[in-house]
C-alpha cells in the first residue's frame, strides 16, 4: 500500500474533520490538526496498520455522503456550526471513527516540533541534548533524617 490512498478531495475533507478534533488556537499559536499535516501522517500509517484503514476509509466515505447531502460536497460552503452538526451525525453513524482518529491525531499532532514550540518546550527529541537540572539538595531531607528507623529487624 502506498501513501496515495486518498483523493485530493478526500484529503481536504479529512483535514477539515481533523480540525474539528483539534481546532486551531491562534492566541496560543497552535494550528489545527488538519493544518498541521496530521492527515498525511495517518494516511501514511495505513501501510503498517490495516486495521486503522479499515476504520478510517469507510468513515471518510460516510463523511463525504453527509457533506454531499448538506452542501453538495463543498466543505468550504459550510458554516462552522453546520460542520459541527455533521461531525455529530458522523459520530452516530460511525461510532468507531472519532475515537480512533482522535487517538492517532493526538499522537501525530503533539509530536510535531511546531506544536511543541508553541507549548513552550524545546521542539526536538529528548536525546541527545537532554535537559539541565539542578543537583539534589539534601536540605529537603532534614526532618526525614531525624526519624527513628522504620524497618523491622528480622
Amino acid at each position, binding site marked *: 500500500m502506498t501513501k496515495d490512498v486518498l483523493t485530493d478531495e478526500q484529503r481536504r475533507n479529512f483535514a477539515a474533520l481533523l480540525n*474539528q*478534533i*483539534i*481546532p486551531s*488556537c491562534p492566541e*496560543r499559536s*497552535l494550528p489545527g490538526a488538519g493544518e498541521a499535516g496530521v492527515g498525511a501522517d495517518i494516511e501514511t500509517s495505513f501501510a503498517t496498520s490495516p486495521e486503522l484503514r479499515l476504520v478510517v476509509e469507510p468513515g471518510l466515505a460516510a463523511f463525504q455522503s453527509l457533506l454531499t447531502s448538506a452542501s453538495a460536497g463543498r466543505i468550504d460552503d459550510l458554516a462552522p456550526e453546520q460542520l*459541527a452538526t455533521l461531525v455529530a451525525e458522523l459520530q452516530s453513524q460511525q461510532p468507531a471513527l*472519532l475515537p480512533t482518529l*482522535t*487517538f492517532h491525531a*493526538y*499522537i501525530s*499532532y*503533539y*509530536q*510535531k*516540533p511546531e*506544536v*511543541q514550540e508553541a*507549548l*513552550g*518546550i524545546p521542539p526536538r*527529541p*529528548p*536525546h*541527545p*541534548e*537532554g*535537559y*539541565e*537540572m*539542578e*543537583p*539534589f*539538595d*539534601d536540605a*529537603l*531531607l532534614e*526532618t*526525614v*533524617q531525624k*526519624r*527513628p*528507623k*522504620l*524497618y*523491622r*529487624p*528480622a
Partner: protein
Amino acid sequence: MSEAPVDVVIIGAGASGAALAWSLADTKMNILCLEQGDWVKAEDYPGSGDDWEARQFTDFGFSPNQRGRDEDYPVNDSESPIHTSMFNAVGGSTILYAAHFPRLHPSDFRTKTLDGVGEDWPIDYQQLAPYYDTNERMMGVSGLAGDPAYPAKTPPPLPPLPLGKLGETLAGGFNKLGWHWWPSDSAIASQDYEGRAGCINAGTCLVGCPHGAKGSSDVTYWPDAIRQGVRIKTHCRVREITVDENGMADSVIYYDADGNEQRQRAEIVVMACNGIGTPRLLLNSVSKQFPNGLANRSGLVGKNLMFHPYGLVRGIFEEPLEGYKGATGCCIISKEFYETDTARGFKRGYSFEMLRGMGPVFTALSGMGSGHIPIGAQHHDGYAQLFDRTAGMVVICEDLPEESNSITLDPDLKDSNGIPAPKVNYRLSENSRAMLDHGVARGREVLEAAGAIDCMTEAPLQPAGWHLMGTARMGDDPERSVVNSWGRSHDVRNLFIIDGSIFVTAGGVNPTNTIQALTLHIADTIKERLATLFDD
C-alpha cells in the same frame, strides 16, 4: 544438529543471566548464553526521534502481545486484571525498565514468622547484603546513604539523581504530612561511571536509554563477561531441556536465527527466563522421568505467581512542574506504609514511587482517557490544564503467594516456532485489594498536601505486570519448593534457576536488584561447591 558441548548453558541474557555469566566467567568454564532476542543498539532506541513517545505503542511497547516482534512470544493474559510486560533482548526487560533499584527489607524474608502470611525464605537479608553491594557497584547505582527505612548499608557508588521542581514539590507534600521519603536508589548513572555516560535527564527511560546512562545489563555486566570469554548466541529460542537416563539435564533444544532446530549439550543448565518464561520452558520439557514438566515433582512449577499490583495516583497542579525533565521512574520513594500494621486492614505493605510528568503525546492520551481533554472547541483549554502540570506516583503493593495464581501452558496459543505459549491465571486477593485501596487514598493525601487541585486514580493498573515472581520458588523443603537456597533444582541436580521465579515472597519494591543479588549469591555458591556441585 548438535553443537559442541559446553560447561554451562544459560538460557536468557537479561538481568540475571548477565550477572551469572559475569560472576562465573572467572572460573574459565566454557559458558554459552542463548538469547531469543538481539542486541539493542543505541541508534535503535526511540529517544532520538520525534516519534519517541508513540513507539511505546508499537515496537518499544511493554507488552509482547502488543509489540509482536519476531523474538517475542505471546502470553495469554486476557483473563488477568494485570497484563504482562517484558522485553526480549540482550539485557532483557532491563532495556525498558525504570531502573528503580531498591533492596528488599529484612522483614521481607520472614513474612511467615513475623506476620503469619506467605513463607519464609531459606536465606535472609544479611546473607544477601554483600551481593546487593556488588550488584549496586556493577549496575552503577545513584542514591543517598542514611535511609532510615533500611539497616546501615554500603553507600551507593554515585550521588542521587536530581529531583527537579516536580520532585521537590512532591517531597514538600511528604514533609508536610511528616511521612517518610528518600531519593530513589536508581540504576542510572548520575555522573560518568565505568565507561558509561552520566544521565542527561532526557526522560526516555521507559523506551530505553540511547545515552547508556541507564544500567541495563547489556551495558553493565555483559561487556565484562564477554571480555572474559563468555559467548552469547542471539535469536535462539529454547524449546525444551532434555534429561538423560539418570534424570540429569543433558541438553537444550532450540531454534536458531534461521529457524533450524539445534541441540546444545551442557554440564550445567541455568534458567534465566524470569517468572513467566522459566515455568513455561519447564512445563514444556516433558519426559518419562518428568511427565508433569521438568523439576516439577513438587507440582509447584508455575504456581504462586506474584505480580506487584500497582495503583496509579496522578495529581493536577496549577504551576508548571518541568516534569518532562529527568529519569522517568526514578525520583523519590516512600516506605511510610511498608511494614505491617494490622490496624490498616491488611498484612504487609507497599511503597510509593514518584513518577515524572508526561511528555506532550502522553499528556494528550492520558487526558483523552480521563476525559480532561475533549475534542473540539475546549480541546486546548483542557490540554493546557494538564500539560506539565501533573505529577504522580505509583503504589507498589506486596502480593502474597497463592497457588491458584499461576502460569500454565495455553492449550491453543503458540509462538512462531510452534512452542506452546504461557497463560496467566491470576486474581487479585482481598489483601492486595485492601492494600491498593489504602495506598491510593494515602497517595491522594500526599498529592493534595503537595498542592494538587485534582487527582486521577487507577487501581489496579492493568499494563503493570512488569514484576514476575514466585513460579519456581526456593526453599529447603522439596515438597514446598522447586529450588534450594542456592538455586539448584531439588529434582535435577545440574539445573539451576536464577530469575524472579525463585522469589518466595514479593516484597513491595522493584525486584531487579534482588534478582541480581540472588544470582550473585547462587554463582558464588556454585563456585565454592564446584567439586561437589551435583552431590546430594
